[in-house]
């Protein structure tokens, strides 16, 4: 808590709620008590399925809409009620929104001109931005005369030309094909690094979020479920939704046993006991105990969900070895690795992802009974 206060905050949403629709029509709560703090110079990603409120949050930061409750702060200043043209924030629109009646250069010059920069300085900024996104040759073209990928780069240049302190990007890569998308991901990372501007990036693509972000906020149904570095979110999903939305997870039911600080034991329905990481909220949500309480012991039993990543476990050498055992129902070959879909003795489905080795003989076939070895610390207790 203490060092958080020292850290510079670029954007903050404090208890922001946004409700669409008036009294008579059906109300939609697009954002439900969202609090998030985005640090200076970070690549921050809002990740969530379509309709979860990502665009709405971005629009509130840009000023195209105003929160129903709560406030938006930019570098500590409450900007909730400022119009867009008074916020030092720029947006890269999903549809690019390039001005069709202006050339590439005129589009890029628009922001600096509106800021009242002198002519020579505007020209210099335009040249610099054209160089930054490698579009020098196209400066005299109109948006309709360049490709989608190029329009995307112009949209970026136009937003950056106004030297924003925070750049908002709403699914900027979703209209591009896969190859271009990968290129632009690298390009965006480079630009963020070179300019040192805070990026708030919206995507529904978990892979994109994991590869590009410094930190990710996972959203669902208008709420932020978890905020953390990609690795943290992937390895320690706090909730069932996060575990399933980012990567794949096996979910098993179990009874929570002894909890000491962040780890605890879980007894699965098959009777096997695992050690698992326990997030703060999980125990609170359970029997109302915290880790620091009387010798860290829990007395009554609490049913929890445990998430285990398919690639974090292995098929055991023999059916009897390992923590779990089950029958192989399907084998899917992926080139670099192979997925084994198992049915555990408890009837629960379970997936194991094994890296393929050079000699290539499969570890198990359909119908085989196999064991699964689970290393300590791989299992994760979920909050709900």
């Amino acid at each position, binding site marked *: 808590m203490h060092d958080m206060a020292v850290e510079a905050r670029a954007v903050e949403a404090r208890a922001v709620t946004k409700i669409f629709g008036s009294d008579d029509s059906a109300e939609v709560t697009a954002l439900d008590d969202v609090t998030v703090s985005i640090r200076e110079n970070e690549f921050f990603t809002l990740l969530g399925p379509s309709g979860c409120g990502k665009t709405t949050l971005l629009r509130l930061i*840009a*000023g*195209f809409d105003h929160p129903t409750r709560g406030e938006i702060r930019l570098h500590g200043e409450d900007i909730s009620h400022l*119009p*867009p*043209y008074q916020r030092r*924030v*720029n*947006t890269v*629109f999903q*549809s690019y*929104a*390039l*001005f*069709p*009646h202006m050339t590439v250069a005129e589009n890029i010059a*628009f*922001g600096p001109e*509106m*800021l009242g920069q002198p002519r020579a300085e505007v020209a210099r900024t335009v040249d610099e931005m054209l160089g930054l996104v490698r579009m020098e040759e196209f400066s005299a073209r109109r948006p*309709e005369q360049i490709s989608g990928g190029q329009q995307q780069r112009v949209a970026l240049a*136009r*937003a950056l030309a*106004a030297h924003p302190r925070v750049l908002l990007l709403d699914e900027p890569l979703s209209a591009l094909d896969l190859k271009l998308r990968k290129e632009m991901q690298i390009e965006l990372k480079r630009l963020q690094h070179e300019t040192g501007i805070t990026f708030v990036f919206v995507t529904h693509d978990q892979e994109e979020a994991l590869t590009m972000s410094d930190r990710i906020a996972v959203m669902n149904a208008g709420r932020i479920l978890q905020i953390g570095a990609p690795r943290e979110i992937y390895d320690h999903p706090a909730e069932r939704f996060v575990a399933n939305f980012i990567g794949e997870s096996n979910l098993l039911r179990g009874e929570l046993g002894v909890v000491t600080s962040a780890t605890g034991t879980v007894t699965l329905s098959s009777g096997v006991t695992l050690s698992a990481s326990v997030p703060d909220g999980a125990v609170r949500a359970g029997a109302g105990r915290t880790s620091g309480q009387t010798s860290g012991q829990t007395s009554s039993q609490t049913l929890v969900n445990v998430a285990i990543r398919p690639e974090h476990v292995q098929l055991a050498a023999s059916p009897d070895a390992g923590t779990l055992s089950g029958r192989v129902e399907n084998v899917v070959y992926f080139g670099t690795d192979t997925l084994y879909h198992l049915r555990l003795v408890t009837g629960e489905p379970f997936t194991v992802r094994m890296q393929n080795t050079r000699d290539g003989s499969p570890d198990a076939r359909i119908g085989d009974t196999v064991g699964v070895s689970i290393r300590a610390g791989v299992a994760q207790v979920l909050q709900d």
Partner: protein
Amino acid sequence: MSGWRNRGQPFSSRRIPGFAGIALATFALLYAPIAILVIYSFNAGLSIAIWEGFSLKWYVQAWNNEAVQEATLRSLGVASVAATVATLAATMAALATTRTRPFRGMTAIYTLINQPLMVPEIVTAVALLIFFAIIKVATGYTGIVYLVAAHTAFCIPFAYLPIRARLESMDLSLERAAADLYATPWMTFRRVTLPLLWPGIMAGFMLAFVISLDDVVITEFVKSAGQETLPTYMLGQIRRVMTPEVNAISTALLLAGVVFVTLFFALSRKR
């Protein structure tokens, strides 16, 4: 019943029996008289029905006819002023009905703007006649302003429709992008909305201009003595003796109409 609407196939007018025949008859009825009118404008004789050889003499005569000159200038003058004012008003109305939050009474305003499209022209004409008569008596003024005001009023919906259509099809994120790039509402309007709206405004103007140029009924009722426009002058001529001079004037008007309407469509379709 089901012959022209098969499952899985889109509706096609070709399947309606007699459709092609009706269409052809309609076209013939529309264009044959116009073709005849144009042809006889080049008649060397006095008649508008008996062909006596090719000549441009009726065009020359119309061109040199002082009454025609005066009526033409008046028509163009009234149309220019009325179309300009109507387009201005229509632009503001279109902005107010598309670029503000929906407000109470917006539908009513929409209906009011389009009133001239719904009320029979003759009713408007009579109403204006009575209304202006009262003002004329009260003020003693009988100038051209009444005619211009009347034309402006019935031109507004024609100018409004293409402008509104263009505003509605305009991507709102463009105006948002401008605001995002520090353009004040006025600068957003000047640098983004207006340039993109311009073809719509010009299209609205063209349509309003032709509609004004064309009007007979309202003009006939509203004009004071000696305020003939080209159409009312022609009407007056037809009541007396008809020569191919009327055909020549009509053909010239037709040409003007075609030019303006073509421009209108070209501008409406411009991205």
